[in-house]
């Protein structure tokens, strides 16, 4: 069900209702009474079909045509009973006041006021009449504005124009309903706007059978009513699971690289930014966002944390399954980890294969295919689905993601390792540290430009800068590569050491990509850099910490590595380490650490 449509034909819907009638008859009943002055009976199969999808047997009883006032007052053929759960009211202005719609131009100002007064008292009579009979939920349908008012372009210039009168009546009714507490407003002007005039009105059927709407319009209206019923029954979806490549951004991050993916100020990047904005709106409405992507986890997180145009933040993701397992399995895992049932989940992907697979394997999950050639429609496909619509919005909704994340962590710790060292050991981390190789100049420059969190001085360099340093024998440019059991992360660390005085060399730059943090690699990196400096004959190594908005976590890094504070100026701290001082050491959980000398320090 995408883009405001159920997705199968009207005949097929009726066929399905017939085929599944035994099953549907056993569902809990929702009794809906429809009071109307138009023909809306063709809407019935749509509503019943939608109801069955969430496990309800929606039963409609229609009041007599144009008998609304009598029925609301409790006349002889009243469809409202003690069992009624919902009352839908459809009032067409054309039937209610033919004069206001068809003979407006001849009306004087006092005629107009009198007509509006009369309509208002009818509306109140109907509402209060219904309320005398039942406490059921009321779904009241708005009046539609006129696409071609009788005064033409003049109508819009006047405060008492035809459409201004209709707006007044809509506002009057909305006011009455907001005091009711159990009534909802269904805006037919929005339904019409979604389809457009010609796809919404069927003038032919209006004159032949008093049915003003096309089949498509009735589907849209049924869906809009259903969204309210679904929300009231608590059957709206709670969790959106997203693919990454070609869903959150254009392109494949593992192939195109961080700078190659499409996300930003030019098309198609702009469309992806808007899509992400729409996702953030959902987060703030309390929807849980998860990732399910066939990818290298590090590549995805690098995009999240280092791509400047990412709107969605890593901490907004409640749970991520980024691996090469099939997506049905991964959705199941998300469901278990977050303790959200599959019928609370919606899955979006640009791959027909994945959508097909998930629909087949997990029928309870709703899926939305993002067609590759309609990137510009992604935002609309998400906002039009209505799966997450609810009738309330609280402060708690805004922090729901955090609650689910805590739940996930709990589950993870329980099911995996006794302690962190065990876990880190299980990663089988292999580090290779050596003097920078010229073929990596572009990547090294990129690291200085992109790395924020673990970056002691945050000095940005161009490729030319790096190339220049490689030519100077006095400057030590050292790179770090990392692999683990899950794959090769490539070049993720850089250190640049430059002479300060005759016997002192300073660490000008020391950084590690955030995707490898928290594994003790930084300590090993520092160890190797200092060791190499001493091997080259330097007596003292100086380190600097220059605070930035993001590198707070590195403040104590040198001190913990055995450095002493030398001086502090303007928030900047200079540390030093002498040849006789204790080296930082290599964390024991690292499987292999090949140092600049070529020796494996982890083995020692």
């Amino acid at each position, binding site marked *: 069900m995408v883009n405001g449509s159920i997705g199968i034909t009207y005949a097929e819907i009726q066929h399905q209702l017939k085929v599944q009638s035994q099953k549907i008859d056993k569902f809990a009943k929702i009794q809906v009474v429809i009071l109307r002055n138009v023909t809306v009976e*063709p809407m019935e199969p749509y509503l019943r079909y939608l109801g069955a999808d969430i496990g309800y047997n929606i039963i409609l009883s229609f009041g007599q045509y144009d008998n609304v006032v009598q029925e609301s007052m409790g006349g002889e053929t009243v469809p409202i009973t003690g069992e009624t759960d919902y009352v839908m009211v459809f009032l067409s202005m054309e039937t209610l006041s033919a004069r206001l719609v068809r003979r407006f131009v001849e009306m004087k100002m006092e005629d107009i006021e009198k007509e509006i007064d009369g309509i208002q008292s009818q509306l109140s009579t109907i509402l209060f009449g219904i309320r005398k009979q039942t406490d059921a939920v009321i779904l009241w349908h708005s009046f539609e504005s006129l696409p071609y008012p009788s005064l033409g372009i003049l109508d819009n210039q006047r405060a008492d124009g035809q459409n201004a009168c209709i707006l007044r009546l809509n506002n009057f009714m909305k006011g009455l309903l907001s005091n009711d507490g159990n009534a909802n407003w269904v805006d037919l002007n929005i339904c019409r706007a979604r389809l457009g005039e010609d796809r919404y009105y069927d003038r032919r059927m209006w004159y*032949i059978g008093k049915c003003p709407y096309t089949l498509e319009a009735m589907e849209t209206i049924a869906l809009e009513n259903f969204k309210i019923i679904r929300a009231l029954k608590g059957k709206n979806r709670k969790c959106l699971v997203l693919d990454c490549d070609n869903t959150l951004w254009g392109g494949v991050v593992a192939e195109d690289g961080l700078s190659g993916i499409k996300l930003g100020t030019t098309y198609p990047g702009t469309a992806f930014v808007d899509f992400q904005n729409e996702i953030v709106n959902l987060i703030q409405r309390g929807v849980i966002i998860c990732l399910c992507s066939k990818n290298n986890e590090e590549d995805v997180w690098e995009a999240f944390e280092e791509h400047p145009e990412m709107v969605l933040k890593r901490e907004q993701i409640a749970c991520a399954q980024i691996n090469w397992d099939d997506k049905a399995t991964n959705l199941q895992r998300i469901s278990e980890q977050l303790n959200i049932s599959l019928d609370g989940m919606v899955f979006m992907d640009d791959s027909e294969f994945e959508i097909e697979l998930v629909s087949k394997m997990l029928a309870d999950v709703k899926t939305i295919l993002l067609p590759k050639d309609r990137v510009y429609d992604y935002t609309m496909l998400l906002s039009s689905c209505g799966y997450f619509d609810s009738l309330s919005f609280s402060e708690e909704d805004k922090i729901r993601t955090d609650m689910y994340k805590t739940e996930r962590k709990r589950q993870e710790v329980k099911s995996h390792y006794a302690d962190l060292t065990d876990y880190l050991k299980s990663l089988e981390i292999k580090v290779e540290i050596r003097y920078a190789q010229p073929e990596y100049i572009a990547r090294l420059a990129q690291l200085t430009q992109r790395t924020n969190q673990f970056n002691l001085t945050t000095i940005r360099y161009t490729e030319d800068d790096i190339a220049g340093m490689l030519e100077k024998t006095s400057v030590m440019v050292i790179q770090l590569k990392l692999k683990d059991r899950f794959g090769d992360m490539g070049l993720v660390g850089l250190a640049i050491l430059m002479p300060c005085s005759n016997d002192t060399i300073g660490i000008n730059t020391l950084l590690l990509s955030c995707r490898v943090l928290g594994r003790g690699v930084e300590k090993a990196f520092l160890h190797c850099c200092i060791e190499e400096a001493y091997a080259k004959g330097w007596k003292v190594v100086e380190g600097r910490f220059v605070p930035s908005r993001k590198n707070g976590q590195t403040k104590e890094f040198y001190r913990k590595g055995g450095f002493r504070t030398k001086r502090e100026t303007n928030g900047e701290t200079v540390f030093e380490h002498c040849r006789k001082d204790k080296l930082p050491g290599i964390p024991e959980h690292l499987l292999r650490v090949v140092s600049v000398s070529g020796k494996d320090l982890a083995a020692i």
Partner: protein
Amino acid sequence: MKERVREVAGKVFGVDTKSLDLESSPDSVEQWDSLNHMKLLLALEEEFNIQFTDQEIADMMSIGNIIEIVSAKGC
């Protein structure tokens, strides 16, 4: 096309397609009331992506009739 018309009619009326023939009409099919008539023509318009004129709607008196009208629209 003939088969599709009968199928749509069967689904809308909720009757077995086999029970409908060219002669079937509002007189012979119990479920073929004025509302189901409206639903049928809306369903046919959707099925064949066509729109009936007011005259065509007035002329639809039997399944055979409807098939003629739909086929005259080039379906």
